[in-house]
């Protein structure tokens, strides 16, 4: 039986990878991909805790499905924004899109 801490470590590693990706990728699409990795790390946490803390409840698993669905939807919105940005600025590198500053 694999102990809970293994799952949590895996999840932490995945989350860190995702966070690193979000911080360092120039491409907006890359950032989105990294965000998905972070979300999956969270999902693993959910499932793991559900398994070990409340084995007879399915709440954790169902929540994960929710998360996946919402993540898909938010990704769609994000991609749509990226497409719109690309049409206007001819780039998807976030360091070149700096209209939000003063």
């Amino acid at each position: 039986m694999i102990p809970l801490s293994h799952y949590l470590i895996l999840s932490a590693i995945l989350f860190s990878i995702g966070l690193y990706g979000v911080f360092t990728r120039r491409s907006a699409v890359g950032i989105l991909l990294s965000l998905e990795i972070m979300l999956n790390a969270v999902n693993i946490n959910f499932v793991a805790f559900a398994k070990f803390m409340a084995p007879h409840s399915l709440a954790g698993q169902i929540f994960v499905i929710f998360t996946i669905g919402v993540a898909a939807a938010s990704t769609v919105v994000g991609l749509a924004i990226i497409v719109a940005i690309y049409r206007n600025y001819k780039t998807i590198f976030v360091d070149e899109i700096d209209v939000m500053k003063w």
Partner: protein
Amino acid sequence: MVNYAYLIPLFPLAAFVINVFWGRRLKSNSAPVAILAMLGSLAISCLILKEVIAGKTLEQSWEWFKVGRYSFEAGFLVDPLSAMMLCVVTLVGILVEIYSIGYMRGDGRYHLFFAYLSLFIFSMLGLILSNNLIQTYIFWELVGVCSYLLISFWFEKKSAADAGKKAFITNRIGDAGFFLGLSTLFYYLGTANFARISQRLAHHPEGLSQGVLTLAAVLIFCGAVGKSAQFPLHVWLPDAMEGPTPVSALIHAATMVAAGVYLVARSYAVFAAGHLSLEVVSYIGIITSFMAGSIALVQTDIKRILAYSTVSQLGYMMIALGTGGYSAGVFHLMTHAFFKALLFLCAGSVIHACGVQDIRQMGGLFGKMKVTATTCLIGCLAISGVPPLSGFWSKDEILLSVYNSGNRVLYVLTLTVAFMTAFYMFRLLFLTFFGKPREKLHIHKPAPTMDWPLIVLAIFSIFSGFVGSPFLGHAFSHFIYFHPEHVEPNHMVMISSIIVGLAGIALAWVFYILSPGIPAVLAKNFSPVYNLLLNKYWIDEIYDRCIIQPFLRLTKFAFSFDRYLIDGAVNLAGTSCVAVSRVKGWIDKYIVDGLVNLIALVVGALGEVFRRLQTGLIQNYILLIFTGVVVMVFLLRFI
């Protein structure tokens, strides 16, 4: 028919409205409009007179508005006095309007002239029909306005504009008295209705002091003094000659000066009840009459002679009313209306024909203007009191009433005035129509529309007196009845009246036909008297010196008071206001604005610092958020 009395003033009013609004388009048709309207009024007036003679009278009134316990009413009153006046006014009015067709031809404001005439007659008819003092006052003022409009009809001339103003202002002085009088009466009696006033005074005089009644009567008489040009407010009437001659005829005969006498006759009950009021009326009457008569002796302007003659004759009517000769005064009002209108229209024809107004320049016009001269002769005979013309009968009644009052001085003065009247009228007649032409004047014959009114008026001047003569049993004084009067003819009075009239005529004949040198010699020998009369007793000058100049000085003083004190105070307030606002402006600019700017500066500076945080790079933000979360977790965990 009496029920339709209210239609009488409405016809001229309609004519006025039509001529004012559409007169420009009607052009010369504005005269027929006015005349047709007058014809309607005249017809109704005559029918009403017929019914009133048969014994019908009518008073109708409606409540107009109510203030507290006082109720104000509007209405009309048809009784012998008003019925007679209605006929006289409409008859003279229509004749004057017909005459004006010829006289005013070619005038730029032809239609307006007829509009004003209609309004004038409307006002007078309304005044006659009024059944209470307040309504009378309203129409009274309307008459004043119309006289102003018509006297200054040729307002391009300064003298005409001044005369209009003079007439209006002088009248206003009297009107103020009238208003006070009617207010007094209304306050003490609670009604302004003539019938109710008479009733109250006749049956319930208790609770009313003699003083109050005398005061009210004298104040009302002030109004009459103004309108009927009695001393000391007579000065406007001679100046009113600046207006077109038909207007003079109308003012002198029917619509204006008659109003004063009519008012006294209408409110006679008040005068009879007041203690000294009738004496005041008769003394003012005799002063006016004598003064105006003597002025007329030496005047040379044909219209001014007639004007002073009118003033004098109005004084006569006042004497009659003052000595209790109610019907005599009203009778003279009627006959005078006819022959004075006639004389004025004759004068108008003469002026129209030869273009001058000074009788010294005329002479020998008889052959050239037969109709005018003949009718003028009739008018002069009538006013001089030669039997059997109308003036004789009315003047005789006045003399009789003065004689019966027992005041011998008054009687002698009245006879003297009768003598002067005959003299100056025939002086005018002889100088104008007889003798040799003194100057070469280009005469153009008057139009037939100007002759016919003269003929009609001449007929009335001859025959209108018979209604009051003993032949018809003094029908007039029974008709216009106030209280029993002495009417039995006194032969002494009658004969003396004829004698002074004829003597006046004879003297005029001697002076101006037989030996024309006498007047000049007399004028030279009695130059102080002559100058006194020629300058109209210097009354205008006295008024100018004693009233107008001080008043002007007062207004100048008031002006400078206004200018320096009031304006100064206002300017001071303004200046101090400006100074205060300067200080306030400084505070606003440097302190309030400074604070606001300071806040803005601080905020700006802070923004300058903190905007560095906002890089626009999304990853920076995420990093910050992440750091923040980590920090918060730590804080939650360890604190």
